[in-house]
């Protein structure tokens, strides 16, 4: 087998050195009744050529966005990732290193993390960020736990317009703790009265911007209301590119900002791995979950970086840790950081304007179709349409025409009467002809009814 270096003769020599007569003698601690000799139900090893063919066959059974105009968002977005990003993250020294526990020989990973933390803090408008969480949804749950610890209060209020995965993950995560999360009903037609829910027992309010339906909201007043009552404002951002055009959560008074970083540098990959962003104010640093990289000097006085404030973490604090997280999204945070470095100030803000411009143009065209209504007053690169028929059926029919039309709202929010709502995302990867194709396809499907 190509991955195993030992020859049979070497194995025998080694067994002899160890002082056993056969390899079975190394496994004598396994109870006899539970020993098996191999995995008889499974096939034997394959050549690389066979594996390649097998894996490609899985891929061919899926409709790749390379072959279809693509308008899906809902927390995961198709953006162009510069070739340099994927080249760099496949360098052996990044790809095949472990967590930087030995800083003298891990400065590459550590400096990159320090730069990542800085970039995340900058775009969210916060003081500090950690070295990543698993994804946006788990980061949201961690933010609620942190807010409860920091305020010594036990209850969180979740906006009804929060991405349902974020809400569900947060509810699941807190359900067995001493804390609780109350989720409001989705509010599509009315303005949500989050401020009215705040009292002295509330640890935090969690609100998404742009919200799940794509709408933007000034959160400054909500931030004031939170702070007056001693609660924290947690702002969720599921589309990181929006931060290049939209007022930052920090500027609106957020205390914790969590988000999904997939849009910058990370491929869609059917939902993971992605990269959870987590940023907060300096005064809450010691309440933060996850790894933190800090600057220091070595014996010779040279600048260097180390993992720091580890006493918050499970490997030291055990059951009193701020989180149980250990492995995070390392390589995805590197991809994010490289992509952000390539974009820079000019590229990041321009990318955001392109997204917004494309979305504005597409929204106007779609809104002009008979029976189709644009529900958003404001949006960044994603908006909600009301169709004259079931959105899931429309999406399915358009998929048969090789058009990936969007996310039916009811797939994520079933039972809310949202069957006709379609969430449409338009990024820089969408061309004018893609939009024409969607409009034409949509008209055809609607007219056939």
């Amino acid at each position, binding site marked *: 087998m190509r991955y195993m270096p030992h020859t049979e003769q070497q194995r025998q020599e080694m067994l002899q050195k160890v002082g056993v007569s056969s390899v079975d003698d190394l496994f004598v601690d396994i109870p006899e009744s539970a020993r098996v000799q191999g995995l008889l139900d499974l096939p034997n090893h394959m050549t690389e050529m066979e594996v390649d063919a097998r894996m490609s066959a899985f891929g061919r059974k899926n409709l790749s966005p390379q072959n279809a105009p693509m308008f899906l968002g809902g927390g995961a977005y198709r953006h162009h990732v510069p070739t340099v990003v994927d080249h760099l993250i496949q360098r052996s020294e990044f790809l095949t290193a472990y967590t930087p526990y030995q800083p003298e020989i891990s400065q590459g990973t550590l400096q990159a993390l320090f730069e990542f933390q800085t970039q995340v803090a900058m775009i969210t408008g916060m003081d500090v960020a950690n070295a990543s969480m698993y994804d946006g949804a788990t980061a949201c749950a961690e933010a609620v736990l942190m807010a409860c610890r920091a305020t010594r209060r036990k209850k969180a209020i979740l906006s009804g317009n929060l991405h349902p995965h974020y809400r569900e993950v947060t509810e699941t995560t807190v359900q067995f703790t001493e804390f609780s999360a109350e989720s409001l009903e989705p509010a599509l037609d009315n303005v949500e009265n989050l401020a009215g829910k705040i009292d002295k027992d509330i640890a935090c309010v969690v609100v998404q911007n742009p919200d799940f339906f794509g709408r933007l909201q000034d959160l400054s007043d909500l931030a004031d209301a939170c702070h007056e009552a001693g609660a924290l404002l947690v702002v969720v951002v599921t589309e990181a590119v929006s931060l290049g055009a939209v007022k930052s959560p920090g500027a609106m008074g957020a205390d914790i900002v969590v988000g999904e970083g997939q849009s910058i540098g990370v491929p869609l990959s059917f939902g993971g791995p992605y990269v959870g962003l987590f940023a907060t104010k300096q005064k809450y640093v*010691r309440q933060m979950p996850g790894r933190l990289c800090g600057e220091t000097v070595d014996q010779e006085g040279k600048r260097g970086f180390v993992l720091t404030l580890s*006493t918050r973490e499970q490997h*030291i*604090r055990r059951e*009193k840790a701020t989180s149980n997280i250990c492995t995070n999204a390392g390589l995805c945070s590197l991809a994010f950081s490289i992509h952000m470095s390539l974009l820079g100030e000019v590229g990041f803000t321009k990318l955001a304007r392109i997204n917004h411009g494309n979305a504005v143009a597409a929204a106007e065209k779609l809104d002009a179709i008979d029976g189709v209504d644009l529900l958003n007053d404001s949006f960044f690169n994603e908006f909600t349409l009301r169709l004259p028929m079931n959105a899931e059926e429309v999406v399915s029919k358009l998929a048969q025409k090789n058009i990936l039309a969007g996310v039916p709202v009811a797939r994520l929010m079933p039972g809310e009467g949202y069957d006709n709502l379609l969430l449409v995302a338009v990024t820089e990867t969408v061309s004018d002809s893609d939009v024409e194709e969607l409009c034409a396809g949509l008209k055809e499907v609607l007219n056939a009814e």
Partner: protein
Amino acid sequence: MTKKYTEDHEWISLDGDIATVGISNYAQEQLGDVVFVEVPEVGAEMGKGDELAVVESVKAASEVYAPVAGEVTEVNEDLEANPSMVNEDSEGSGWFAKLKVADLGELDALMDEAAYQDYVKGLG
């Protein structure tokens, strides 16, 4: 002014009914470089043995317990900027908190300096 010690290496020194609490020189030596001390809030009511503070080195975090019951009247705010004071002068300027002692009799059960030194020797 009497100074007493606990088996968890806290020291407590009494002035009237106000007691100052910190960790012993032996404890700071064991901990190594102290990087952070989490002190309680002024006004907090402590029972004997309640968690009064947390003292952290780079690779460890240790709870510090209230040697006697009482109300926190003052905390050492200088520790936030200079946690190294715990290493430099743990039984002086590196104190953690002051308590208004509820029952002075609780001090009687603690070790005096000589007894504590013997206790530490016994730890090898």
